[in-house]
């Protein structure tokens, strides 16, 4: 296969899984005739019809809540939340219901459901079309949270998510949809949930990232290489469950850890990574566990000057690596 864009990988995987398993359905706002506002579901309605590709009303709690019910009665719904920013009306259904169904029923019921949502900034989406919302869900036992960064991983992880017996939140950075390309094997491979990847081996500083930031971290690693600094990039891929082994092995080797995330810093996902590293790799640390993250404002502002100000970028990461390396 020629290289695929990130969104190609997602669309093709959805189609594949629907062909493979007749219980997989897709539902969400504008996912049918229009093929999704980003066109991640383009062509599915034409191929699979009204029953399996459902244009829902504009009601997120309903989208998730009925997906839970459909999952309980023999289907594997893959629902789309049009923007991650609009997942909050469904928060109660996700956190109180989907996440707890198995535990509260003592394994009587499970919810095999995938919730896809485009997230992230840098696309002039402003406060409500740019958010990183992963931290709200990575905290919740019963959920799994996946954030792929390459077309290869998007395909392999989406397969694993759809086939998983429990609810998975699958966040796709919208800036990557068409800007990121890569090879995608034409096989039925999966990427297991809960496994991180070392995407750039190095020795001096571990840089932990995911999603778009995993790309920026690679760019930053290249930049600091010119300064003679060897950075190792860990692309987490799955945020819950976290692959602590790969993470800690890397930090124990490098002795330094920089965590990168796009969301505002305080209480973001990287806080947990930092806490784990600080506790479990303490004896190996040659410098403080540091973080590069978004500023403490309630969203990415719209004006391009403000948006640039907000966004983490390769240079900010490179600076963080340099500072830490010099520690």
């Amino acid at each position, binding site marked *: 296969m020629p290289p695929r864009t990130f969104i190609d990988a997602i669309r093709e995987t959805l189609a594949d899984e629907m062909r493979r398993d007749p219980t997989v359905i897709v539902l969400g706002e504008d996912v049918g005739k229009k093929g999704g506002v980003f066109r991640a579901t383009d062509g599915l309605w034409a191929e699979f019809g009204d029953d399996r590709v459902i244009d829902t009303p504009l009601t997120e709690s*309903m989208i998730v809540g009925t997906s839970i019910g459909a999952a309980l009665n023999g289907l594997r719904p893959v629902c789309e939340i049009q923007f991650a920013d609009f997942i909050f009306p469904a928060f109660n259904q996700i956190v109180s219901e989907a996440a707890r169904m198995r535990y509260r029923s003592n394994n009587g019921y499970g919810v095999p459901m995938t919730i896809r949502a485009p997230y992230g900034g840098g696309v002039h989406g402003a406060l409500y079309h740019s958010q990183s919302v992963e931290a709200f869900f990575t905290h919740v036992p019963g959920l799994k949270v996946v954030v792929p960064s390459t077309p290869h991983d998007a395909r392999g992880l989406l397969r694993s998510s759809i086939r998983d017996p429990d609810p998975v939140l699958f966040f796709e950075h919208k800036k990557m949809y068409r800007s990121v390309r890569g090879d995608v094997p034409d096989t039925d491979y999966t990427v297991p949930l809960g496994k991180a990847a070392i995407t750039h081996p190095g020795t001096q500083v571990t840089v932990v990232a995911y999603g778009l930031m995993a790309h920026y971290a690679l760019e930053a690693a290249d930049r600091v290489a010119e300064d003679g600094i060897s950075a190792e990039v860990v692309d987490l891929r799955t945020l819950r469950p976290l692959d602590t082994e790969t993470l800690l092995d890397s930090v124990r080797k490098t002795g330094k850890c920089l965590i990168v995330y796009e969301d505002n810093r305080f209480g973001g996902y990287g806080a947990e990574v930092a806490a784990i590293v600080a506790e479990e790799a303490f004896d190996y640390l040659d410098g403080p566990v540091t973080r590069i993250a978004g500023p403490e404002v309630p969203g990415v502002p719209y004006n391009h000057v403000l948006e640039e100000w907000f966004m983490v970028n390769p240079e900010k990461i490179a600076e963080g690596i340099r500072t830490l390396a010099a520690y």
Partner: protein
Amino acid sequence: MDSRSTSSRTLPGRESRLAADVGLSDADLIEMYRLVVLARAIDERMWVLNRAGLIPFVISGQGHEGAQVGTAWALEKGKDWIAPFYRSIATCLTFGMSARDIMTAQYATANDPSSGGRQMPGHYGSHEHNILSVSSPVATQLLHAVGIALAAKIRKTGQVAMTSMGEGSSNQGDVHEGLNFAAIHKLPFIFVVENNGYAISVPAAMEVSVADVADRASGYGIPGVVVDGSDVLACYAAARDAVARARAGEGPTLIEAKVTRLTGHSSDDQQTKYRSAEELAAERGHDALPRFREQLRDAGVLTDEIEERLEAKIAALVEDATEYAEAQPDPDPAGATRYVYADVEEPG
């Protein structure tokens, strides 16, 4: 359209007029009555146990049993689905749970089929019987039932999904979103509102802007029916018609049963603080149990002999369930982290 073929075997000609009028057998009526009485007996025992300090919390279905048995009776056990709420003891019994199942939930025993002792009493559920696990945040289950109905339609299983909740809960946003979707897709879904006039202490006039929740149905283009919740057979008939519509692909129905809450909201509530003695006394007159009993006796379906037999059996069942539950071990904390996710190595 007979959804209870197993329990209405006797010939129609030999049935009472009362039974024949609603298309049931006398045996059905007696079994329905037994369920109402059993639910009440278990419920009363729960309060005794609570006052004796044996179980820390009770939430009761007293006053709702007639509507619950009537509506649930219209479904086909083992095929259809129910997403009940915390007062649904009679619903769950009608749909297949046993007195022991209910009582182990009160004691939160290791083998409590609802949750293995993880949830508060009142949060029933049974995978075996297609009874969805109850959670506490109200009204969420409506969407699950709608989703179950969606899957039934897509998979062409012929199943119907019913959910129930109080009138207070029916004001939650999820209800609006679910009814809209179910109506658009003409899903085989039934929404039962058990309107007891209160949401804890808040009277209906302060929590629902219309006298009848059923009035909301027309806003979704679906039928809305008000039934007297103390009239078991009226509840049954309304549900039977709704099931017929659902199976025929005609879409959802909203059934509002006017019931009464004979107890405080829960064992933590003192309802005399907000309800007068007169009101409470008057509400006793709206109890389905004595009314159904009189009705069945008048129709000659319930005889002294049958009643005595039922009474004895139910007393024994409640006794057995209590002793059984009390003897069961508490859950082992070693298993407390299980089933957060599917347990691939050791399937449950």
